């Protein structure tokens, strides 16, 4: 079947089997490999992308059901500069092997945008087998205070 996806601001047309997940459509068909396939069953969060601005698991989302804009980690940087959350992950050393990081970053971006009260709870769907959790939480908090001071300046 033919579907149209809007990914990181670009409209992409593709012909897929109806069973194809958003994750496989992104990775295998569109070459967008930021979202990772960790478990393919919704337990690890490495495939987290935004659909209509909300974090979802690309492995449990049927590509054919998606009509809203999709944003992946590739769509975060602007003007050649990393997103403030990406910058915070680098500065806080919020990763070791990095496999979970694109998913962590997508949840973290939503946490900052939604100004969530409980960062650990909001990030609980993203596993890090290197257990970089303290630094991940620190990165989210850094990005949040960066945003708050930016908002205060406006």
């Amino acid at each position, binding site marked *: 079947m033919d579907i149209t996806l809007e990914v990181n601001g670009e409209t992409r047309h593709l012909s897929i089997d109806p069973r194809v997940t958003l994750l496989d459509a992104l990775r295998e068909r569109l070459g967008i490999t930021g979202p990772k396939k960790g478990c393919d069953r919704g337990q690890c969060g490495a495939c987290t992308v935004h659909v209509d601005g909300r974090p979802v*698991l690309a492995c449990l989302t*049927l590509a054919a059901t998606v009509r809203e804009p999709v944003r992946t980690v590739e769509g975060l940087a602007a003007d050649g500069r990393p997103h403030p959350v990406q910058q915070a992950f680098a500065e806080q050393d919020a990763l070791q092997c990095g496999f979970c990081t694109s998913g962590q970053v997508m949840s973290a971006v939503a946490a900052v945008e939604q100004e969530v009260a409980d960062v650990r709870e909001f990030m609980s769907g993203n596993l890090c087998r290197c257990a970089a959790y303290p630094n991940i939480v620190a990165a989210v908090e850094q990005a949040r205070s960066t945003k708050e001071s930016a908002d205060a300046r406006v």
Partner: protein
Amino acid sequence: MDFLAPTSWAEALECKAAHPDAVAIAGGTDVMVELNFDHRRPPALLDLNRVPELADWALDDGRVRLGAGVPYVRVISELGHLLPGLAMAARTVGSPQIRNRGTVGGNLGAASPAGDSHPALLAAFASVEIGSVRGTREVPVAEFFTGVKRSVLEPDELISAVLVTPPSGPQQFSKIGTRNAMVIAVSAFGFALHPDTRTVGTGIGSAAPTPRPAPEAAAFLAGELEAAGLWSSRGALPATLATEFGRRVRDAAAPIDDVRGSAAYRSHALSVMARRTATWAWDAYRDENRSAA
């Protein structure tokens, strides 16, 4: 594989009648696990995401009509006051990512004995609204489940909504699992006080072939509260009564040993959760009176 994408409820029912073996998919968080691992290869998928009639909730004739396609995140953010037990259960579903996609309608459709919505819906005396080209019917949640992952849904039927009377008293939900997120319940319990009818609602999860209420335990507790005049006096819930209620809830379950927990553990956990949720709800009922006075 066919992919059916109706854009109205009437069209969705026609699709289901024409393709009774089509698997309905809303958020996909349950169906996709089976597809990804080839545990299931349905001849057709019926995408309900474009059916506007399923996408909202409203107060209808004194009841909340929760469209089958409303995601958990909206149950939590919009319905905490009208469906408190269900909102509590929704907070324990999967992870934030899952709660952005998964729906109560999908939870019911999958009919897992471990579905998180079910104990809360049972305790609230909710009903399931079911449609087909033949018409619409309403089934109490307590009669909806017929076996492990089986329900009264006929092959040509779809779930349109859940119907729940707003609470007249406090509700509680408790769940045991091994991790904060992405946990399939080892066992779960929903509890509701219905002071308007002086009844008690109960729902057992993950401790029997289907989600089920504990009607004998509920009638026992309501009767003891009545006999002691506690519904009116709002006196403290005697600890012995709460403990006995927990025992009777435990006796209403039929748990098995599996990878998530032993039957003995589930039974014990249920008795504890029933005692605690009843006590929490009763304490909230007493507080309501104090804050009103």
